[in-house]
């Protein structure tokens, strides 16, 4: 590799050709401030428009200051990252950004977690010479959708959201529009997000450095439900939450906090604390049976069977194919997501068990996800207008509730989930990361097809963080071709292949967020630190290994519910409660012959 020698802040350094000044400086322990710049290297996420100019440095011999994030190192370059000129320029840049930014930090959802606020602290901004008269800032209407709140008054035009929406997710809901002061990131024709191809994956929210994009907050509604003596509250918590929530309380990324999480939910006053891992096991029973059913038919000679079967746990992914590939909507499994399966069972089987009327039960989910907020509102998941899940809150929202309720999370003694919807397996917990759903399905499908115990539970070949992965699993002679994609850009590749008739897969797992649910948009903000995602990923598999039972079909309470209530997987009752259907939501331009 070609190496380049240069001097940064009077120190010589050697870097590979093509390295930016920012990267070279980082390697030397020089922390150049950035704002628009955003990278998640191992997940292929890059946003470097070089637009905000916070990272400018002095390059000796150049007339103008250079943005460190997009300027490549050159041989014998002499760079100063902290000269008076640089510091003054950065201050001015910051003051100009702040001059068109509301100063309502105390009431902002991102207060304490805002990268612009951090910069203002770092540069000790006390007064701003560029603040104009009142109402001189650009002004936009705040928009609320089922998952995401857009307050573009706070937008700093870093365009991270646009990069996530277009490049990582290829959803194309967001673009920079207009010019000059009215310039903003918005949808086509400034429409409401509801009328755009938005999937509510929330990756825009996950990367927004400021309070321009935030999640819809249901913490108040949840607290009111808890204290209402006429309501029974049932809470479920998703697998990825337990490996991330500790971060909100200063614990190491990758800490498995299942026991403390359960204890905190009990301390908050929920009547029943259950686990989405349980309904993940239930999902495997339904989805696995569906896979085996389709495969058996196909191998029996029926080539009209819709294959490959696609997973359907991820609501952003469901929105994606409904908008972008509606003609292929017979491919995904009809199994509801674990959240919705849980809700349906909580308000039927469990409600009957505790003798509680449907409308007297408030079902809450804690999710690493923002699309789940949208999913709970879908009409198919309501009975007479009463939703199976009333509120879906994010990992961040739960952390806020815990802090609000004076609960010292770190010192809580571990507690256990309640019975019967709290018992789960290692197969349930790996739903939280890319590759996990399909691995859980394979563990069960293998044993059902072969009627033999698995020689080895861990399918290492299905694990990893590469965007598209594939593996062939030998199921007693039957070669099962499996595809995995995370990030909707990668999902699109696999779908285009299916469309072109080039796909060799029998089953494909798709998760919308890079890394899967562990990097869901409802998780504690990682601010571009990919190591945090890696730590959560490792923790998920560690949690799996620690479980006494690791295959969904061996979960005793899953076996019990089929015996007592559901009958058999994909049977009549299951279809009624645990399966769903999909819609065509593409916008198409057609000829109007009447005109």
């Amino acid at each position: 590799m070609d190496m380049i020698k240069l001097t940064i802040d009077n120190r010589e350094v050697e870097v590979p050709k093509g390295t930016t000044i920012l990267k070279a400086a980082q390697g030397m322990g020089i922390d150049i401030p950035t704002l628009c710049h955003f990278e998640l290297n191992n997940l292929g996420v890059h946003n470097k428009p070089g637009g905000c100019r916070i990272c400018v440095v002095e390059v000796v011999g150049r007339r103008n200051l250079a943005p460190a994030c997009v300027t490549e190192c050159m041989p014998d370059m002499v760079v100063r990252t902290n000269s008076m000129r640089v510091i003054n320029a950065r201050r001015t840049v910051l003051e100009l950004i702040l001059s068109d930014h509301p100063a309502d930090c105390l009431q902002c959802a991102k207060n304490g977690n805002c990268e612009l606020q951090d910069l203002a602290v770092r540069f000790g901004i006390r007064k701003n010479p560029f603040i104009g008269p009142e109402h001189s800032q650009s002004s936009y209407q705040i928009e609320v959708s089922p998952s995401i709140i857009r307050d573009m008054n706070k937008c700093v035009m870093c365009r991270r959201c646009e990069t996530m929406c277009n490049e990582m997710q290829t959803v194309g809901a967001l673009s920079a529009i207009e010019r000059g002061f009215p310039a903003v990131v918005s949808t086509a024709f400034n429409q409401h997000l509801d009328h755009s191809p938005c999937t509510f994956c929330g990756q825009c929210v996950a990367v927004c450095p400021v309070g321009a994009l935030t999640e819809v907050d249901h913490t108040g509604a949840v607290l009111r439900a808890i204290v209402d003596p006429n309501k029974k509250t049932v809470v479920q918590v998703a697998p990825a939450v337990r490996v991330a929530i500790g971060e909100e309380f200063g614990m190491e990324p990758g800490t498995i906090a299942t026991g403390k999480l359960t204890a905190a939910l009990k301390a908050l006053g929920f009547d029943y604390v259950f686990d989405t891992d349980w309904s993940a096991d239930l999902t495997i029973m339904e989805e696995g049976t569906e896979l085996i059913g389709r495969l058996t038919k196909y191998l029996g000679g029926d080539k009209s069977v819709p294959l490959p079967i696609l997973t359907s746990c991820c609501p952003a992914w469901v929105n994606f194919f409904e908008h972008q590939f509606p003609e292929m909507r017979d491919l995904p499994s009809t199994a509801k997501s674990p959240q919705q399966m849980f809700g349906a069972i909580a308000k039927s089987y469990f409600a009957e068990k505790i003798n509680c009327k449907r409308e007297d039960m408030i079902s809450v989910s804690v999710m690493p996800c923002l699309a789940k907020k949208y999913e709970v509102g879908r009409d198919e998941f309501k009975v007479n207008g009463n939703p199976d899940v009333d509120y879906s809150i994010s990992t961040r929202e739960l952390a806020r509730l815990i802090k609000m309720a004076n609960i010292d999370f770190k010192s809580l003694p571990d507690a256990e989930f309640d019975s019967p919807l709290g018992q789960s397996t290692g197969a349930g917990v790996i739903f939280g990361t890319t590759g996990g759903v399909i691995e859980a399905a394979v563990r069960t499908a293998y044993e059902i097809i072969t009627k033999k115990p698995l020689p080895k539970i861990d399918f290492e070949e299905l694990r990893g963080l590469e965007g598209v992965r594939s593996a062939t699993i030998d199921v007693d002679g039957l070669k099962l071709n499996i595809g995995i994609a995370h990030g909707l850009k990668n999902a699109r590749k696999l779908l285009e292949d299916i469309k072109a008739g080039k796909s060799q897969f029998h089953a494909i797992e798709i998760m919308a967020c890079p890394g899967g649910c562990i990097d869901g948009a409802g998780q504690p903000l990682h601010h571009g630190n990919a190591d945090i995602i890696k730590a959560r990923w490792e923790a998920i598999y560690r949690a799996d290994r620690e479980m006494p039972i690791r295959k969904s079909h061996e979960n005793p309470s899953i076996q019990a519910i089929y015996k007592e209530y559901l009958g058999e997987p994909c049977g009549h009752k299951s279809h009624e409660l645990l399966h769903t259907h999909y819609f065509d939501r593409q916008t198409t331009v057609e000829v109007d012959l009447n005109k």
Partner: protein
Amino acid sequence: MDNKKIIIKMKTEVREKVIEICKKFNNDPGELINVLHQTQDFLGYLPAEVQELIAEELHMPTAKVYGVVSFYAFFTMTPKGKYPVSVCMGTACYVRGGEKILDAFKKELGVEVGETDADGLFSLTSLRCVGACGLAPVAMVNGKVFGRLAPANIKDIVKEYREME
């Protein structure tokens, strides 16, 4: 949000022409600006449904098409009036009171810059220099140049065109 498919209706000849223009540029997203130019030449403006169609043909997000349309002042989403009015805001016209001329048109026509009046007769835009700086301030109505304008002249100019109807 409802679960219905959104279908946008459009006249056959418009649809066919737009598809033809896109094809001429090999349905290449990199040719978006050229496609928009030719479409606006043909239609006079770029309504939302046409942008949806262009996005579909060029395989790019509608938001990106709208991003370009809303960025450039030349592109418009409102149909032009029968008599388009353009007031010069170039340096020479500006220092000789171009803005007052623009204000007079706004008042007389009851529209803002970029808008078209209710009966579709006049639309108002501003532009940068028509090459007649010696006549500043200048405005163009339906391609005809009016020079050495004063705000008091505007009423009569508008009246002249109204009477042609």
